[in-house]
């Protein structure tokens, strides 16, 4: 009878809930069976417990995200109310190995092109991309002897979903951005929102890109080791629209700042050593009073 079936389902649900990591219940559910209340439980049971051991992230990427956490949240873990952006989710992805370098000419300041493949499977359908950056973490032991200007060229491979080209063929989405390298920079951020937004919006979860730098005036040895020693990470600033996620727009609606199109904030931001990650690519300094 329906009542007893319901009771049985509740008891099974309670048993499962007691056995799994309850945090998993917070994960947004998407897909065609999203109405099934047991789906998140089954997902976790089939995934985390019986699967392979959890992979460890890159230490420097973790360091960056810890800095970001301190910028965004209080010691108690409450999101800071002074923030002006609408991100409630930030995801950092490291490229899938191996990272391949095509030939370059370091003597003339043209660095080898890096072949990067990012798997964005963890991005849920309810998470909407607002901003994305490529993050180069510069080793603190490497000091850039002098300031230098570089041009970053980026080519996105044709997405697999479109089926127009073979994967890996750098046929579309060219992008180039100038960046200025200074001493003491710990991170270099290259805004790639305009390139990634259509891909993420179309549920493309495999991002393949080719990046190369041309730095004619910078010291080639040290800079190249800084840019080539570690592959960049891809950071996505997202707005999770699910009910579990914290939404700040109610408090911001009457705020002083109006929302800006994230696409307007293209460009490059770099973070000096000792400072936290850039917040939304804006200057942390307050505007002077007239």
């Amino acid at each position: 009878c329906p009542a007893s079936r319901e009771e049985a389902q509740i008891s099974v649900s309670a048993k499962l809930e007691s056995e799994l990591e309850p945090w998993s219940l917070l994960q947004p559910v998407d897909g065609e069976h999203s109405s099934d209340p047991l789906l998140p439980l089954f997902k976790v049971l089939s995934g985390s417990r019986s699967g392979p051991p959890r992979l460890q992230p890159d230490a420097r990427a973790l360091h960056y995200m810890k800095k970001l956490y301190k910028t965004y949240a209080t010691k108690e873990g409450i999101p800071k109310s002074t923030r002006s952006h609408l991100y409630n989710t930030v995801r950092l992805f490291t490229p899938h190995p191996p990272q391949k370098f095509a030939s370059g000419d370091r003597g003339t300041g043209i660095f080898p092109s890096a072949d990067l493949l990012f798997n964005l499977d963890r991005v849920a359908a309810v998470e909407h991309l607002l901003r994305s950056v490529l993050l180069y973490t510069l080793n603190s032991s490497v000091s850039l002897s002098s300031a230098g200007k570089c041009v970053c060229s980026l080519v996105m491979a044709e997405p697999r979903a479109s089926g127009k080209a073979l994967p890996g063929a750098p046929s579309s989405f060219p992008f180039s951005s100038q960046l200025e390298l200074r001493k003491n920079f710990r991170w270099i951020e290259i805004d790639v929102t305009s390139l990634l937004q259509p891909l993420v919006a179309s549920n493309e979860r495999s991002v393949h890109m080719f990046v190369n730098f041309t730095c004619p005036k910078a010291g080639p040895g040290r800079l190249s080791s800084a840019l080539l020693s570690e592959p960049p990470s891809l950071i996505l600033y997202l707005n999770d629209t699910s009910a579990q996620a914290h939404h700040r727009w109610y408090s911001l609606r009457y705020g002083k700042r109006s929302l800006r199109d994230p696409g307007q904030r293209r460009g490059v931001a770099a973070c000096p050593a000792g400072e936290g990650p850039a917040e939304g690519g804006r200057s942390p300094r307050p505007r002077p009073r007239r």
Partner: protein
Amino acid sequence: GRETLSPGPLESLLPASFTPSQHFKRFLFPHDECELLDFRLSFRQLRWDHWIVAPQRYNPRFCKGGCPRAVRHRYGSPLHTVVQNIIYEKLDASVPRPSCVPAAYNPLSVLTIEPDASIAYKEYENMIATRCTCR
């Protein structure tokens, strides 16, 4: 003030718990009445520290205590709560008395390591109780 008053001649005739000073004190600072309490935990205790990087400690807080008759004044409870209290007392004791539950929450920022080794910063709604009410 919370300091104890010395009992007068009338108060000495009554049980200690019913002296006017004690009664007054209990009115001002009711014992076991619905209130917000701390519960500090570390994710290490739950063995979640391998995937929750920050915060390391978490105080979700919780609401505990009885709900008095006059819930509306102190807790801002809706009229429904008053009616439910009356039903419990006057008509049917199987209808439960109003419960002491959270009325407001704060969000919590969480930094996690995902199964694919990516790192996620997320802000979850309603993770820390900040106020209690009777409903």
